[in-house]
């Protein structure tokens, strides 16, 4: 009997011999290095990815009192797009074509303007219920700075509309321009499917996220230098206060804040006192920010209530974004304005052109009775641009994820699903194949007929039916459900090959010798048959990973994945369900899915390459014929 040491030595020697052969296979080395690379990414995902993979938020200690601040708006382009020379930046005129549909039903008149598509009618049929319902509004694809021309191409000739017959209004996402003309008149004038052409000027640019205030916690007195203030009252003073500041808990005090003081002189004032505190910043983009987030922590004494307004000032013109009334209190109140999307025509107006802007806090103190002290902390304003991160952001509405981070974390899921599925299914196949082949008889018959049955069942529909019913029972599909299903139905081919190998092995002389020497069934399977089958095990392990990876991605693509899990499949599903592929195609958002698809392909191919290399080394017949 060999001692433990000898066994280990023997194992090392064998591995060395195997490795020297494996080194010679170029394909195998390429595959192996790719797998090592992806494993590295999967293990250190938390260090490589800059953000959380799903619903990333700016941490709440940055902006107290806010449930979560999104890191970027949805559907951002990658930051490095700005280095691409062919991307247009600046003011341009855009002409867009629409098709007009008017319908009279009962008493009502419905009008639709459908954007030009390859097949206008198709676009009309698909979309009118969703987006274009009952409106006499044209929806441009970009922000409308100024309408240049609207015309309808009628059978009698081109009709130029008077621009005063149309108004720009409403929310940011759709950029609507509405007709003032009565619907009846439009329908009378234009037959169905009349082509409308809208020409408007707009600014296009790649904007980045801007954090206006560098040190919004006021940790250093220098932070105050960038702020300026003014007030009509000479009794007002604004200073940096190193003694106070908002503290999330008693233990961790974050000292430093802005202090506004009003010194009373005994006279009763009849008028409000206004203080404006502002910070200048440069906005260099032709396109307005896509969203704004403003935050202020405030706490004051001496006055029953004060008013705090946030505003942007451009060329002396003040645009008030929001105003809040703050009652007197002992602790800080956290005020914020987020998702100003609803009122973004306003923001479009504010940031109409590049230039110098001021972000201002306006504090209005009602006629004070005595001294008033106001503490301001965590004052910040974020302007969200349309580019973000290495690969942009996805289409999640509330907290869009950074696609790059999801991609990095997704490596884990794919590797885990692929490898575990391969291990489980290979194990099942090995066990059943060995038992069936060695025992023979009725056991063999039973197992093989069962295998045949499973082989007959259509695979993808079967997976889908099972995931659907798992979803019905547990409410959602987890990664483990997918691993279990894939393993339970992935072992049949392997079991068959193991069985046929065992069938020939068990008639060999060495097995007979072992039997004659009194070896038990388990002993013979374990010591004589298993080692001979193991070459096949390694190959199958490598070869069944890719199909598991691809099937997992396909199931996710169909919407049968775990939605709470950052996986490559989720990226694909989000892209697919966003419908961008049929409207804008891969060209506009290729960076969203391209990396995920390529990663799937590369990882799957890597395992196949390793499998082929193993096959060449461990399968002597193949080696011969090369």
């Amino acid at each position: 009997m060999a001692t433990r040491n000898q066994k280990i030595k023997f194992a090392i020697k064998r591995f060395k011999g195997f490795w020297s052969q494996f080194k010679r296979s170029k394909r195998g080395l390429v595959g192996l290095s790719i797998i090592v690379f992806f494993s590295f990414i999967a293990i250190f995902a938390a260090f490589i990815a800059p953000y959380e993979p799903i619903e990333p938020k700016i941490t709440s200690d940055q902006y107290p009192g806010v449930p979560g601040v999104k890191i970027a708006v949805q559907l951002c382009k990658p930051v490095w797009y700005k280095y691409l020379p062919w991307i247009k930046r600046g003011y341009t005129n855009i002409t867009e074509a629409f098709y007009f549909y008017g319908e009279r039903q009962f008493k009502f008149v419905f009008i639709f303007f459908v954007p030009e598509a390859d097949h206008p009618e198709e676009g009309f049929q698909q979309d009118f219920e969703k987006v274009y319902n009952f409106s006499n509004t044209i929806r441009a694809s970009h922000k409308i700075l100024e309408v240049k021309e609207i015309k309808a191409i009628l059978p009698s000739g081109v009709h130029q509309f008077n621009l005063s017959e149309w108004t720009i209004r409403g929310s940011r996402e759709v950029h609507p321009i509405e007709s003032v003309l009565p619907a009846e008149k439009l329908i009378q004038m234009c037959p169905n499917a009349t082509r409308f052409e809208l020409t408007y000027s707009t600014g296009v640019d790649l904007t980045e996220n801007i954090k206006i205030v560098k040190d919004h916690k006021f940790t250093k007195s220098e932070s105050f230098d960038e702020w300026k203030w003014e007030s009509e009252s000479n009794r007002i003073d604004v200073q940096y206060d190193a003694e106070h500041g908002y503290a999330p808990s008693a233990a961790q005090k974050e000292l430093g804040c802005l202090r506004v003081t009003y010194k009373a002189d005994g006279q009763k004032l009849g008028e409000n006192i206004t203080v404006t505190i502002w910070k200048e910043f440069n906005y260099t983009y032709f396109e307005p920010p896509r969203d704004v987030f403003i935050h202020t922590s405030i706490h004051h004494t001496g006055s029953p209530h004060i008013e705090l307004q946030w505003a942007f000032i451009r060329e002396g013109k003040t645009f008030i974004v929001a105003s809040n009334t703050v009652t007197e209190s002992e602790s800080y109140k956290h005020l914020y304005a987020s998702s100003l999307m609803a009122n973004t025509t306003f923001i479009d107006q504010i940031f109409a052109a590049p230039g110098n802007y001021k972000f201002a806090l306006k504090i209005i103190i009602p006629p004070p009775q005595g001294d008033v002290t106001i503490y301001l902390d965590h004052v910040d304003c974020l302007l969200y641009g349309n580019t973000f991160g290495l690969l942009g952001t996805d289409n999640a509405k509330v907290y869009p994820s950074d696609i790059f981070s999801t991609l990095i974390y997704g490596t884990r899921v794919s590797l885990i699903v692929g490898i575990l599925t391969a291990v489980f299914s290979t194990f099942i196949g090995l066990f059943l194949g060995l038992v069936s082949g060695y025992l023979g008889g009725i056991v063999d018959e039973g197992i093989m007929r069962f295998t045949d049955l499973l082989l007959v069942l259509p695979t993808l529909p079967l997976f889908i039916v099972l995931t659907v019913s798992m979803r019905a029972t547990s409410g959602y599909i987890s990664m483990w459900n997918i691993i279990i299903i894939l393993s339970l139905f992935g072992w049949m081919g392997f079991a068959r090959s193991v069985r046929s190998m065992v069938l020939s092995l068990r008639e060999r002389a060495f097995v007979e010798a072992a039997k004659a020497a009194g070896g038990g069934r388990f002993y013979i399977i374990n010591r004589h048959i298993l080692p001979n089958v193991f070459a096949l095990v390694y190959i199958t392990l490598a070869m069944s990973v890719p199909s598991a990876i691809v099937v997992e991605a396909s199931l996710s693509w169909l919407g049968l994945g775990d939605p709470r899990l950052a996986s490559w499949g989720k990226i694909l599903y989000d892209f697919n369900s966003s419908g961008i592929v049929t409207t804008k195609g891969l060209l506009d958002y290729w960076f969203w899915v391209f990396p995920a698809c390529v990663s799937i392909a590369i990882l799957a191919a890597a395992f196949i390459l390793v499998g082929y290399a193993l096959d060449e080394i461990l399968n002597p017949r193949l080696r011969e014929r090369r």
Partner: protein
Amino acid sequence: MGLKGYIAKRLVYTAFLVWAIITVNFLIFTAMPGSPIEAYMSSLKGANPEAFKRLAEHYGLYKPPHEKYFLTLKNLLTLDFGYSERYRSSVLDVIIREPLPNTLILMGTAEVITIIIGMLLGVIVAYKRGGVLDTTLVTGSLLTYSVPIFFIGWLLITFFSLYLHLLPTGRAYPVEWIRNPPSTVFEYIIGRLYHMILPTITLIIFSVGGWILLTRACILETITEDYVVTARAKGLKERTVLYKHVLKNASLPLITNIALAFAGMIGGAMITETLFNYKGMGRLTYDAIFLTGGGSDIPLLQAIFYILALCTVVANFLADLLYGIIDPRVRYG
């Protein structure tokens, strides 16, 4: 045992498989904990009592398990899948009327082209193994094998439909046909073909690699056999060796695969059809899984699932028959 005995044996075995499929069907849809069919029925109960009553009768909701099982057996054997509330006709009718022919046309075309190209390339590659063509094609096949099919589809849509504006992004036929159907057969055929190009190419790119690899492997397996060496040693022409000795023997495993491919064809390509919005069996399955209001159309799913499995069994049987006729070793073995 002659050919007749062999066929009889396969027939019995096929009947056994059909029974097993029905049983699996029963287990998955009716007997599994949280039975999908009962869940589906209870979702109908409040909204549509009449439909609920009809389904309860069809599936024997209030009957004991063994009676339910026999009912399922009877229903599936007679291809009676009940009535689809969503499509307002019998489930079998829903499947046969439009999706099945659509799928057969699409998949049949794709499958035939794929198999021809794949086998031709496979033979060439196997015969000139080790060459540049071999390396390129094998690596290429491995790659297409590991690229998700929707990615191929997306690339094609983007390039041909959205960039070149040459081909439609989806659908089985032009939208205008809903209102005014084509007047001539020629127009009809052209319209259908026009909409089939992209999905067909997608399917071909996706599956041709597998056929190349399979054919290559089968041929390499036989090319090293002793009888091939003998044939060469006899001084036979290389062409004779290839056709008579190598291809004939290598074709056996290929026949099974072809039969299975044509059986699997009926299921349609779920992903491709969904991607291209092509109304075939795959798209029907997808629609059955994701009902607009949430939940799934279980009766329809059950029918599709059963029909697919049944077709595979029949195809297997046919392949076995062919095997028996071609290869005498199988009959007597």
